[in-house]
């Protein structure tokens, strides 16, 4: 019983983080048809920015904000400078490009920040609650994680649904040419989309790091889990990505709790292959036929 509760709570927290990361991948996929594998090191490097600021004596929240803003800027620069030329070109070129970025950012982090493990603070407790003599894995930081992800998602929904910029961004994502002739500056919207996605990615990086250790590769497996979660949700649907992230978090938490944590990546691979081969359009698609 206690194990089940621990697994479920852990799964929810992890799921929230995967959901955020999947959402970041989905936002970029939807607007530019590129899976940004470099999202992982981008989130990693912004977390290092936060760490440097916190280690310099500033508050956690200063670092937190700086990382998010850093993510926003990094996403915009990456789209504008590196990705723009391959948009709409052969998909293999875009994939290779994001992998090149992956390697580059990794290496830069290693050069600038070193490769050793460094501990990252958490703003809230990472100890579980104790009720009577049983301890529950409900941590302050876990609650914060879920709340932060929900808040950011709520803000994104508000932005996309109820603002004019959001409408422009959606138009640019769905149909670039029509958006252009209606007067939408499509390039600008794509840059903004990448920036927002990178911000959400940075958030998931900060949440994974909280109360734990960071090193240049600490986000590498998260890009896989985020990708699996996004594919679960259909890769095209932000809501699907979020649900996919939660489902994946719960499943992987169960695998980790009952089978062993070393099998978690394998479980993710199995889930991914099962979805791609059985329901290529994601769990919630109405039409199963889809080129993957």
């Amino acid at each position, binding site marked *: 019983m206690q194990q089940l509760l621990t697994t479920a709570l852990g799964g929810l927290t992890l799921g929230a983080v995967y959901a955020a990361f999947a959402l970041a991948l989905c936002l970029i996929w939807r607007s530019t048809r590129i899976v940004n*594998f470099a999202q992982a090191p981008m989130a990693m490097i912004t977390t290092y920015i936060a760490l440097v600021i916190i280690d310099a004596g500033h508050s956690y929240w200063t670092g937190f904000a700086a990382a998010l803003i850093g993510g926003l800027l990094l996403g915009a620069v990456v789209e504008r400078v590196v990705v723009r030329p391959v948009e709409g070109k052969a998909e293999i*070129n875009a994939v290779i490009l994001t992998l090149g970025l992956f390697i580059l950012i990794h290496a830069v982090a*290693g050069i600038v920040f070193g490769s050793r493990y460094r501990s990252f603070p958490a703003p809230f407790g990472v100890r579980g609650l104790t009720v009577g003599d049983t301890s529950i894995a409900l941590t302050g930081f876990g609650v914060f994680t879920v709340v932060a992800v929900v808040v950011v998602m709520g803000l994104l929904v508000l932005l996309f649904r109820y603002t004019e910029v959001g409408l422009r961004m959606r138009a640019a994502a769905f149909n670039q040419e029509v958006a252009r002739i209606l007067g939408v500056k499509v390039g600008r919207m794509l840059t903004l989309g990448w920036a927002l996605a990178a911000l959400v990615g940075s958030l998931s990086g900060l949440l994974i790091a909280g109360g734990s250790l960071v090193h240049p590769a600490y986000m590498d497996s998260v890009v896989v889990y985020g990708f699996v979660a996004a594919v679960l949700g259909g890769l095209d649907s932000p809501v699907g990505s979020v649900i996919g992230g939660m489902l994946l978090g719960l499943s992987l938490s169960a695998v980790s709790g009952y089978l062993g944590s070393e099998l978690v990546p394998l479980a993710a691979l199995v889930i991914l292959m099962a979805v791609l081969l059985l329901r290529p359009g994601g769990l919630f698609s109405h039409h199963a036929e889809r080129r993957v």
Partner: protein
Amino acid sequence: MPTTTETAEKAHAAEPRGGLRRRWGNSVLPRHLTLAALGLLAVTVVLETTGSFANSQLASMAYLGIAAGGLTVLTGLNGQLSLGHGAFMAVGAYTTALFLDGDNPLPLPGVLAAATLVTLLVGAAVGVAAARLHGPYIAGATLALAVAVPGVVLHFDRLGGEQGLGVRMPETPAWVLDAAYFVTGSELNPTKYVAYIGWAALVVTYVLLANLMRGRVGRTWRAVRDDEVAAEIAGVHLGRARVLAFVVSTACAGLAGAVMAMAVRITAPSGFSLTLSLTLLSAVVLGGLGSLTGALIGSALLTFLPHLVTGVGVDAGLTDVRAAELAPAVYGLTMIVVILVAPAGITGTVRNLWRRRRGAA
């Protein structure tokens, strides 16, 4: 801008027909065998005239070259991307470690064949699934594979956990030692022996791959890459062509893993990280997708560049550990630049320049 693979391919098609080609008519096998013999001769000269450190570097170049050769066939010729070749090398390496263990290890050719075969079977299983995927999906799936394999290794106690397995070198047969002494006049040490094994394996692999690429199978792969619909109408079984490319490619990775196990003397999960898979990809992109020459150049860069730039970094005041990250920074940056500026890679770009100059003359 043409796609990466197309450019490399066009460059390839327009390769100047040399004298050798004319003499041998249309048969490519004799030409490849001649090149192979010349290559082996060159390798022998180099290995005999350089020291132990260079020999071990050359052994690394050999296994990276074998894996990159396989990957370039898959990515450049068939248009499938694999970020999981490091994982397949792990399969080959662990198979080698296990088969060399025990009191009566298999003889060397048996071990290499076993490693290749086991990896080939794993590759076939993955390939059947992967053949149905495209672009970013296949990239994501193989990325998941690359991340999953080290964990799977940890799950089985027999595979030695984080520390990994030590690899026992097979005894160098007496006749080889005698022959080596007779030919070169010096003793054959184990490092040099592994380098010879690696390069022999590389030459054999490249001859086989080159023949495949130039033959009917290669044409089928290119047809599938360029236009699936047209290929299907022409009677190509798309799935079968893709699976075959994947299997051939993973078999190379398995062989590469076997050589790597012997060269490094230890197989541990940390040796087969995601970085290995990505670096292999960067090697084939740098060299030029779809070209074996490019794969070889790429693996040479992977082998020799780190030493060079790390030295530069240390001179510039970085610590050893940080300076070691300069090499991957260069790979990553070059990959980006190659895709943006010269999608044909090094070999393709050189060929294009050469053609342009000849055209102008």
